[in-house]
């Protein structure tokens, strides 16, 4: 894309655009280099017989995943999903309509896997697996953040994310991968976190956070690393150690643990909650990354595992972990395995373990962005839907002013930040700006109605995305932060009530 990247102008209302063919066809991820592909057990480049291999892999995926097979078969093209994806709303490119994104795979499926498609070809909606088709796959299956919003509105719950991730897995198997996503997977599997932070670097940041807390509050709050025999292993997205505003939430977790009086530790080996294996639909990589956490939990002999603020990480840990690397019979069964940091904090807050000074957050008028992987792919607490109420309860315990964004843009119907699912990479900045337009419109709405100036959330990718794009929309990047950042501001250290 030549020229300057600019954010769309906000009208304050979400408008459904006219269809514009090819509007975002130039937004493509940078391909992974051969050596990286090889490191992750994929072919280093596209083999001459790529078509056969592609179709073999596709057959395998269809056989292994009921979701993929069923979704390919049963879509009736009713159109209910067509205007529900933020990538379509942002770009107008028809390939970003969920059903039309699926059609790329479905048309190949018809051509090679169904009798009707083999016989009647185009008339039956079947398409050959050509270079152009492959190019479309490589483009538009990387313009989906796997947010599952389309699934909410589909009468059969067809989840385009399942198709997207399967498509990426098929492309990886013929040597076509995304540099950004695969590099991260490689770092997570070899070093232990997405940022490639080593143990000394990690210890350094933790010391820094300890000093900051000491300076600001006078309290000796510790951030322990690799402590055997601690009660709790905390696993957070590694951005929490490094990036702003993420580190403010890390400060929040530390203060909460300190104040709760529990023994806890971080691990350098399992220093990453995020799991990009999900984004490429690869079971083996997802399992390998996830395994580090449970191996460490065993090795450090902890009783509980608690997960920091991260959307898809929570989905993998909540929904898939038990399948991937369970059963976790070596942990204390009185607690949820694993437990979300919001579950931990709210539980104790309700038992009056903490004292909050809400006025510390009085310069903020807060709204909450439901991160889609938490909202639509997991749960917190005991009741379905607690993933919506619990973070809001925490905000209300620590802030005086809270307002929700308009219905239809929050909770189950929340809009993605626009950079999840492996799209948080610089080459896609134009796409990310456009995909964020739905969230930005909703944010603008509460800004105008209630003077909101803080977008709270519980996802590391969302935090990074919003920090990056808010300035393009002429908002201050400091308007975004974690729920535990607000808790960190309000929690009164030393003063203890109850428990």
């Amino acid at each position, binding site marked *: 894309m030549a020229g300057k990247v600019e954010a769309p102008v906000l009208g304050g209302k979400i408008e459904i655009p006219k269809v514009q063919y090819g509007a975002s066809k130039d937004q493509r991820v940078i391909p992974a280099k051969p050596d990286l592909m090889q490191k992750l057990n994929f072919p280093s480049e596209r083999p001459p017989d790529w078509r056969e291999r592609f179709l073999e892999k596709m057959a395998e995926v269809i056989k292994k995943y009921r979701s993929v097979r069923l979704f390919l078969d049963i879509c009736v093209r009713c159109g209910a999903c067509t205007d529900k994806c933020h990538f379509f709303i942002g770009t107008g490119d*028809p390939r970003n309509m969920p059903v039309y994104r699926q059609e790329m795979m479905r048309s190949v499926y018809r051509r090679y896997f169904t009798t009707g498609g083999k016989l009647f070809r185009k008339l039956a909606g079947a398409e050959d697996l050509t270079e152009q088709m492959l190019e479309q796959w490589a483009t538009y299956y990387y313009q989906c953040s796997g947010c599952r919003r389309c699934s909410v509105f589909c009468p059969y719950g067809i*989840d385009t994310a399942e198709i997207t991730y399967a498509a990426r897995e098929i492309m990886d198997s013929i040597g076509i991968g995304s540099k950004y996503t695969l590099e991260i997977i490689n770092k997570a599997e070899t070093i232990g976190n997405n940022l490639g932070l080593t143990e000394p670097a990690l210890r350094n940041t933790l010391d820094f956070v300890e000093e900051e807390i000491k300076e600001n509050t006078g309290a000796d709050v510790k951030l322990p690393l690799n402590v055997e025999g601690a009660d709790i292993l905390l696993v957070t997205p590694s951005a929490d150690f490094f990036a702003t505003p993420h580190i403010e939430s890390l400060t929040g977790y530390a203060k909460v643990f300190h104040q709760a009086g529990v023994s806890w530790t971080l691990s350098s080996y399992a220093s990453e909650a995020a799991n990009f294996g999900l984004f490429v639909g690869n079971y083996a990589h997802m399992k390998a990354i996830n395994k580090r956490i449970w191996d460490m939990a065993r090795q450090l002999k902890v009783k509980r595992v608690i997960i920091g603020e991260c959307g898809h990480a929570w989905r993998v840990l909540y929904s*898939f972990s038990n*399948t991937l690397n369970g059963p976790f019979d070596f942990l204390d069964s009185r607690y949820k395995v694993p437990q979300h940091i919001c579950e931990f904090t709210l539980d104790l807050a309700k038992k009056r373990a903490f004292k909050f000074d809400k006025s510390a957050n009085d310069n903020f008028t807060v709204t909450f962005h439901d991160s889609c992987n938490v909202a639509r792919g997991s749960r917190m607490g005991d009741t379905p839907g607690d993933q919506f109420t619990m973070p809001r309860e925490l905000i209300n315990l620590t802030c005086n002013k809270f307002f929700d964004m308009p219905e239809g843009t929050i909770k189950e119907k929340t809009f993605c930040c626009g950079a999840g699912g492996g799209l948080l990479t610089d080459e896609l900045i134009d796409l990310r700006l456009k995909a964020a337009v739905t969230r930005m419109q909703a944010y603008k709405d509460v800004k105008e109605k209630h003077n909101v100036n803080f977008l709270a959330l519980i996802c590391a990718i969302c935090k990074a995305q919003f920090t990056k794009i808010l300035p393009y929309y002429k908002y201050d990047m400091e308007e975004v932060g974690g729920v535990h950042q607000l808790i960190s501001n309000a929690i009164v250290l030393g003063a203890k009530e109850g428990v």
Partner: protein
Amino acid sequence: MDTLSIVFNLLAYAAASIFIGGLLYRIVQYFNTPSPLKIPGTPAPKTSIGVVFRLLPEILFFRTLLRGGVAEKILWVGGWFFHVSLFFILFRHVRFVTYPVPGFVMAVQQIGLAAAHLFPFALLILIVRRFLNDRMAVISLFQDYFVLFLLLGIGLTGIILKYFLRTNLVDVKAFMLGLVTLSPAPVPHSPVFLIHVILAAILVIYFPFSKLLHAWGVLMSPTRAQTDNPREVRHVAPWAK
């Protein structure tokens, strides 16, 4: 029996076998395809009973469509009335294959007749809405119109048979009863009736190999039919051990 009758009897049996065989094949195929991971669309029920209560309103009232905007509401009206009238029309047809006709089938004859009138209008909504916006135009395929017009053809020939070119119902019943009792009888030589039967046979044959499988879909869809209890119960599919 004349040749025509033999042909139509064979057609009916062929269609029925392909329909039943095809559906069974599909159902077995879906059952044998595992769901390796827990992927319910949350908030989701925690128990199987809860799942039943999640699916019932979907099946009976197409609840999801009511969550959408205007386009989905139009679709709801067309889709819901189409399916409900199809149901009653089929029910009304039971009188052709039972003897004596059970009381409850007699009881719905009038509703069935009303449904037959509604049927083409519901289909018309479903056809017209495919032209309502540019997004629908992009995604609609030949096969989408094919089924709609096929159904419309079946509905209209049915209405013609009822009001305009009436066939001898005794003959129709003899033919149909013959089919289900495996004692083939001659087919009525009414062109409209024959077209009605041919179209219905095409639909039935096409069913297991097409998007019409969506009838099963919602029951099997992991995003809607799975329970949300991954922390409590370990879910493992055979290949993923």
